[in-house]
């Protein structure tokens, strides 16, 4: 049952092979059995899940089922969900029960999807390894010594380990694509503005974007159909006609022009990753694609630009966690300033503090022009690079990360080394473009390798089409780890 795609699960639900309650129970059993080791979920609430599953069955019995009614899914613990504890991976929100739901959560509920639980993540989505969670590191299901990637490591690990058929996630600098690659699953970060940020706890507002992580491109397309759409409660949500992201899945790839940015295949890229991508490109060629070399000359400045802009926005976004209205408050304090200091010192972890300090510094009087404004200029240059590159091809193919998953604890002493791992994913967020990650093989040590496809604005359907066609002739995405 758990190897089925969500399309197959939906068909089985329609055929009456099993009920939504039975399906949810099966996944809950697996989650309870394996979460102790994997730590993919922060919160599992069986009663709430079964309540939703029964409602889905009732909807189906009444003849009102939609295409995904009764399909279980896991929500990243960054989306506010009414009545559910919503922690964002932080001690700050350890006992925060959200009083309202994010647009994404509402859309999923309306579609009849059933919440299996809330997945682990780096605290406030800051991290590339999921080691920054107050609730403990997530283990990579393929190798429990390895990190699952981050920040959506819980969602990627849950899907890879078949603890959930599909999951929501968010991507600010690679947080969907990189954990998908590390866990051997598929994920897509849509164009900025396609998925509403209402109720999605902000890390860096101009970069954050929600998207799905699933076993296949087709599953991602089906969930993206639910997640995407204009929302007047988010001023950066784009007012566009509703799209069917599955519409082009079966288009042949003949004539598809794939651009390979030379800067992404240069020094620093691990040989095993490079050869897995080469093999995948060869497969794409067999499907009729052509390959051209392109250049994204400003790639190397994406990291400093991102690590100025994202912390700047974060330093302001996280000011609301002050102990006044909700969330953690220090038990003892003398006066207002002391309450703020102790509350925030206790409530935030080291990586969050590091980024708040960095962000506060770059926005300070006298430094703003040199850092923040400069970073914004670089951001424009990067966006222009992509436009020039995409003028020469239909999609860009690239690595997701320089290596496969590293060991838990390996990079904890060197935050900059960790930041450098984001080199291939940050540019997409800075430019606001869609990016997809799908599995293309394994390293010798058995850890998965992913490949990234980058398209122009609103090219999600094209990216999903390419990945789906690839997944019709390969089986990397069907491999599951032994738990």
């Amino acid at each position, binding site marked *: 049952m758990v190897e089925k795609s969500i399309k197959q699960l939906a068909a089985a639900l329609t055929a009456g092979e099993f009920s939504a309650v039975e399906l949810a129970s099966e996944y809950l059993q697996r989650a309870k059995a394996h979460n102790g080791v994997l730590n993919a979920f922060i919160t599992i609430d069986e009663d709430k899940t079964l309540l939703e599953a029964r409602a889905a069955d009732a909807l189906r019995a009444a003849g009102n089922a939609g295409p995904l009614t009764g399909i279980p899914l896991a929500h990243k613990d960054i*989306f*506010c969900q009414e009545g559910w504890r*919503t922690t*964002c991976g932080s001690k700050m*929100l350890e006992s*925060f029960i*959200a*009083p*309202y739901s*994010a647009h994404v959560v509402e859309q999923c509920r309306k579609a009849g999807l059933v919440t299996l639980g809330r997945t682990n993540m780096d605290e406030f989505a800051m991290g590339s390894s999921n080691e920054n969670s107050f609730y403990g590191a997530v283990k990579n299901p393929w190798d429990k010594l390895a990190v699952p990637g981050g920040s959506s490591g819980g969602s990627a690990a849950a899907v890879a380990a078949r603890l959930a058929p599909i999951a929501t996630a968010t991507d600010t600098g690679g947080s969907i694509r990189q954990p998908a690659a590390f866990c051997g699953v598929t994920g897509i970060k849509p164009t900025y503005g396609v998925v509403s*940020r*209402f*109720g*999605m*706890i*902000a890390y*860096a*507002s*101009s970069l954050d974007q929600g998207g799905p992580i699933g076993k296949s491109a087709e599953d991602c397309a089906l969930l993206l159909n639910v997640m995407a759409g204009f929302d*007047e*409660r*988010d*001023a*950066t949500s784009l007012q566009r006609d509703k799209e069917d992201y599955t519409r082009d899945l079966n288009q042949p790839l003949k004539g598809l022009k794939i651009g390979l940015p030379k800067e992404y295949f240069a020094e620093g890229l691990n040989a095993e990753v490079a050869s897995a991508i080469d093999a995948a490109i060869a497969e794409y060629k067999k499907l009729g694609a052509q390959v051209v070399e392109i250049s994204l000359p400003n790639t190397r400045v994406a990291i400093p630009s991102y690590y100025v802009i994202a912390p*700047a*926005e974060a*330093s*302001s976004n*996280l*000011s*609301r*966690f*002050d102990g*006044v*209205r*909700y969330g953690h408050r220090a038990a003892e304090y003398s006066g*207002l300033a002391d309450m*703020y200091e102790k509350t925030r010192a206790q409530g935030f972890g080291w990586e969050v503090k590091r980024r708040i300090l960095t962000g*506060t510094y770059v*926005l*300070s*009087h006298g430094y*703003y022009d040199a850092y*923040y404004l400069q970073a914004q200029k670089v951001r424009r240059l990067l966006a222009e690079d992509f436009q020039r590159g995409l003028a020469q091809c239909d999609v860009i193919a690239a690595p997701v990360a320089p290596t496969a998953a590293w060991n838990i604890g390996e990079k904890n002493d060197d935050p900059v080394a960790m930041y450098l791992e984001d080199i291939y994913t940050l540019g997409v967020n800075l430019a606001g473009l869609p990016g997809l990650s799908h599995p293309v093989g394994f390293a010798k040590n058995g850890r998965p390798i992913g490949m990234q496809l980058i398209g122009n604005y609103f090219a999600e359907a094209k990216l999903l089409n390419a990945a789906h066609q690839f997944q019709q002739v390969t089986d990397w995405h069907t491999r599951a780890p032994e738990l």
Partner: protein
Amino acid sequence: MKWEVVIGLEVHTQLTTQSKIFSPASTAFGAAPNTHTAEVDIALPGALPVMNKAVVEKAIQFGLSIGAKVNRRSVFARKNYFYPDLPKGYQISQFELPVVEGGAITINVDGVEKVINLTRAHLEEDAGKSVHEDFHGQSGIDLNRAGTPLLEIVSEPEMRSAAEAVAYAKALYSLVTWIGICDGNMQEGSFRCDVNVSVRPEGQKEFGTRREIKNLNSFKFIEQAVKAEVQWQIETIEDGGKIQQATVLFDPDTGETRMMRTKEDAHDYRYFPDPDLPPLVISEEWISRVQNELPELPAAMRARFETQYGIPAYDAATLTASKDMAAFYEATVAAGADAKLASNWIMGDISATLNREEKDIAQSPVSAQALAGLIKRVSDNTINNKTAKDVLKKMWESGDAADTIIEREGLKQETDTGALEAIVDEVIANNAKSVEEYKAGKEKALNALVGQCMKASKGKGNPGVLTELLKQKLA
């Protein structure tokens, strides 16, 4: 040494919209604490601001009414600081690119007109309120006011006296209430002034160091605070001291200003463009629609009153102090009253009585039409001015028309010469001393005799006719 005072004002005007600037919550005053709050007003995780178009429209109205530039593109920025009444830890305001730039307002002090230029006006959200009563050593927070739309209007430092500062604040107040963007309720904080004050030796070009008096919510306080601050600054300098840039508060009980914080404790607000809000873009169509819907402004109406009704500049200015008063005046004239008499009555007895009863002209128990009915009886000599004042009082109390009261109480003025002649003869016979004085050339004595005749006629005699009769008989 002679000192010159330099004053600039920053006025926070609360805009009259149903809902808040970035949320659908109500802006109504006086609700139970924290009941008018949406997700973004209490800064729940994941909550996002969305611009309220009605707020932008009011900013456009203001910009157009002061002849300012309405920026086609302006930017919202975050002003970061921690305070319990600031739920997000930042205030959404406008910094580098405000919605309105420039413009001017004409003020009038003792008949002298002066143009005060404006620097800018920008949109921002109000903070909540800390509540210190009822919590026994703790503080409560009420976020009902958080997110209330404000237009902060900043003047150039072009005022040179407390009187000019008050005149500017009043002119601005009259304008924003006139065009209806602010309800003008100063007690509830709808119109709050921060006043920047400095002094410099007369003739010196450079400005002195300024201190900012925060949060003045009455014209009287502006005047008192500026005078106290100016005196304090001059005394400090003359005693050899130096003014330190600071923010001060005015205490109406002591009549003094006291220091809140100096520049050294000033925050670094770390302004940056708010990534949750795209730049505010205002189309040409929007501006021209607002322009077409803008009411006639006080300055234009003042000029029209002078030419159309032939009343003096002073009358025109007083009558256009508020939209309601101007409307009342125009309705009175339209109902047939003489234009100058109508002006006299409205500026005189009507205003005085309303002031005494603390009423607005819109609440006047005597309508414009009823007032016109009274004025017409003065114009056609049915009653004299003194009787008319009494009639107005009775109209005020009873709500009856002037004619009804005149008829009922037999107040119609006596103009019949035959009847008045008998009164005049009697007064001459009984006032030998005044008669003598008048004949000796004392003109004033005639007034005393007219007064006696009026008394004898129980106020109904026409004073003009009586004067003529007296003159004839004593010639």
